[in-house]
């Protein structure tokens, strides 16, 4: 920040931006005096956890704040000489998509599903450019974002493209008018890690080619390290720290930044060890090979027969004959990208969806069991879902939710249940008075603790954790993972830990199974899978994980 003179011209400048939210109890400041500059050709990352105000900042720049609920209190947003906050809606429309373009997290919902790609692209181009051959421009743009066979793609509809392709189309659309500034709001969060790597690479290339400056909003410090020239760290609507990416990573001055960086899981942290890190001082459970879960030749076909009378063709299997086993006190990490069948496997193991093959929980085969016969087995195996808010009934108090399994299995009377709920809440690090409140009154991490408490109520031996920390902020994520490790050490739980996140799997798992297209491509101890990487796909998966260290990328760029 000292050598302002030598820096290239500033394209976008945000000064003292404050935004208020209208709440029933009056105005509440959600963005407080944010300032930053974006230099020409620079990538600036706004990094922070949920509620930090990073997305609100980007909406304010685009003039897309929902007026009914948010209001700019003060400040200015200068694009060159114009203050975007003082522009009329009509003038702002010209800026939007012209000088400033935006891409969003979910490319499927940002594209119109009933319009083909070509029409949408051409429309976006015609909106801002007076050109006779918008089709040609559209084709060239699709070519620029490396979409194969652009002519054919133009006639296709969004649902016919993969997630990565859709995001490429969004980028093509955003860049088609050669904007000065591209705002990317979590552009790769919804994508698989291998696709994310491709999209990030594409964005770096296009930045050079189109000379666009990028404001990138992300919660992922790995993405920050890979993409950013400069970083603004945000927390609770305030700027905590900003500066050059190398400085921030090497010499973070704010405590919050240091905590944030410390919480980021780094692949390879646990290299050379066989077991997950120990959290508690509980004596190590003696490892004796007592299988809690044995799966052999598991096949799942979704949807069954289609057509009116079930005469349609059978759908292809989502899971194709996989086998694995899990012993008491151990964690099997099931890793794979979307569509690999890992979540389906988790549901089948609990008998929540029909399957073929054999699944033995604690020695008992659950194939073909009726709901009644499954009842005792449910006490042995429980599940924790990805989105803790979605998996709690919003109309049920937390206490009732945790007591639910006890009521279902008719365990104890009302007062015993109440005591049990209080004990469980304490067990997962919450206070017993939480029982009276409702899920929406808690934060994401607390809600996941509630879900864990509910799963533990029946004292199961096996927990299936399906992307259980994926929806949580990194700092919260680390604490929930530690809680799960602690519970495992103390209660000898076995986890089937399903995740797309290699770093999380590395921390949690004793052994790892890699899934792709419904099949197991590799299985072994954590050490084998992460350090030997015998399978080509596993190597690709591990290689695609962004490393939270900007120096790695600087070196790669030079060499």
């Amino acid at each position: 920040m000292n050598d302002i003179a030598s820096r290239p011209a500033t394209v976008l400048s945000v000064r003292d931006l404050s935004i208020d939210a209208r709440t029933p109890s009056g105005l509440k400041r959600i963005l407080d005096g944010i300032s930053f500059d974006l230099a020409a050709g620079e990538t600036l990352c706004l990094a922070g956890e949920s509620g930090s105000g990073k997305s609100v900042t980007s909406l304010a720049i685009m003039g897309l704040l929902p007026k009914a609920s948010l209001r700019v209190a003060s400040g200015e947003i200068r694009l060159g000489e114009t203050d975007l906050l003082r522009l009329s809606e009509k003038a702002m429309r010209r800026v939007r998509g012209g000088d400033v373009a935006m891409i969003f997290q979910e490319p499927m919902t940002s594209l119109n599903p009933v319009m083909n790609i070509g029409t949408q692209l051409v429309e976006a181009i015609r909106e801002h450019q007076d050109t006779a051959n918008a089709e040609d421009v559209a084709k060239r743009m699709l070519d620029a974002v490396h979409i194969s066979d652009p002519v054919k793609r133009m006639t296709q509809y969004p649902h016919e493209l993969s997630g990565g392709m859709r995001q490429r189309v969004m980028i093509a659309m955003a860049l088609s008018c050669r904007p000065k500034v591209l705002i990317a709001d979590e552009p790769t969060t919804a994508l698989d890690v291998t696709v994310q790597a491709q999209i990030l690479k594409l964005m770096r290339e296009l930045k050079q080619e189109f000379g666009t400056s990028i404001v990138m909003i992300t919660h992922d410090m790995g993405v920050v390290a890979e993409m950013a020239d400069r970083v603004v760290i945000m927390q609770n609507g305030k700027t905590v720290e900003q500066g050059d990416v190398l400085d921030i990573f090497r010499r973070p001055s704010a405590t919050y930044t240091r905590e944030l960086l410390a919480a980021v899981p780094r692949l390879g942290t646990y290299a050379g060890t066989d077991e997950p890190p120990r959290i508690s001082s509980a004596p190590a459970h003696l490892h004796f090979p007592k299988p809690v879960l044995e799966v052999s030749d598991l096949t799942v076909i979704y949807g069954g027969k289609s057509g009116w009378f079930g005469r349609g063709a059978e759908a292809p299997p989502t899971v194709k004959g996989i086998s694995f086993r899990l012993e008491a006190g151990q964690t099997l990490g099931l890793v794979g990208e979307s569509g690999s069948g890992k979540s389906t496997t988790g549901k089948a193991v609990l008998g929540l969806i029909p399957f073929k093959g054999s699944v033995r929980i604690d020695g008992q085969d659950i194939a073909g069991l009726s709901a009644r016969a499954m009842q005792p087995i449910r006490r042995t195996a429980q599940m924790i879902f990805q989105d803790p808010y979605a998996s709690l009934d919003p109309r049920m108090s937390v206490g009732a939710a945790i007591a639910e399994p006890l009521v279902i299995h008719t365990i104890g009377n009302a007062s015993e249940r109440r005591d049990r709920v209080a004990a469980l809440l304490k067990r997962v690090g919450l206070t017993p008075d939480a029982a009276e409140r409702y899920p929406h009154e808690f934060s994401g991490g607390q809600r996941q603790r509630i879900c864990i408490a509910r799963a533990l109520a029946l004292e199961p031996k096996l927990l299936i954790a399906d992307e259980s920390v994926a929806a949580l902020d990194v700092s919260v994520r680390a604490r929930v993972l530690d809680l799960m490790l602690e519970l495992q050490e103390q209660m000898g739980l076995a986890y089937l830990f399903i995740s797309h996140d290699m770093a999380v799997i590395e921390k949690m798992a004793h052994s790892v199974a890699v899934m792709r297209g419904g099949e197991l491509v590799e299985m072994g101890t954590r050490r084998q899978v992460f350090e030997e990487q015998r399978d080509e796909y596993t190597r690709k998966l591990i290689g695609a994980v962004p490393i939270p260290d900007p120096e790695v990328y600087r070196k790669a760029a030079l060499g």
Partner: protein
Amino acid sequence: MRVLKEICRQPTALFGLAVVLIVILMAIAAPLIAPFNPDEQMFDGLTLEGAPMPPGSQFLLGTDTLGRDLFSRMLFGARTSLIIGLVANGIAVAIGLFVGITAGYMRGWAGNLLMRFTDLMMAFPALLLAIVLAALLKPSLWIVAMVIALVNWVQVARIVYTETRGLVERDFILAERSLGAGHGRILLLHILPHLVPTAIVWGTLGIATTVLLEATLSFLGIGVQPPNPSWGNIIFESQSYFQAAPWLVFFPGAVILLTALAFNLVGDALRDILDPTQRGRG
């Protein structure tokens, strides 16, 4: 008790509740309040030319074309219309909820069958169906209520079906299943409460439409039989005199509107009060 307290804190809800209570009380106490026999055709109820009397000191709301006191008829009509509006409509919502939830939860061929039947009912002209049903059965107040219920449940079923299908896909239902909860428990404790807002909104909106449907049936001679009054048939009997005696349409119309609005206000308030995620807000 909490519900009452909450309602008292919201002026609009309190107004709605007051109107509802007044209407119900007046219907119950009709014989005590009514100044005249509602069915009596009074000699001084008509002008010398034979036209109905406008509202005045003798006849508070005027008289109808047969010289009967409008106020008295409306008091007794409230009994009919409230029974139609509450009972018929209540039954319709109940049937709709039952069919919609069952079909949405079961899916498969049984669910399909139920929904195709619902669609069939929807495509069938409601009035024609009502006429056929009413013709088969001897018209009386309760038969009319049943007929209206059998015609009106269809839309509720359709909406509830769609909502249930969405709910069944939600993670907390999957979580319940993984805990080992049976179908009955899931349906009653985890799906039904989420449909209460829809049922309340439909239930209150349906009051006005059912009252008017009853009037249509009366008009066609298959509803509540004359001389028994209902708000709807008062309007229909006198609509051709609208120019000459506007009060005959205005007063019952205004009462239907006000009652429907009042129920709606109470329903809206109830919906918010019963939703724990809204608690502590607003």
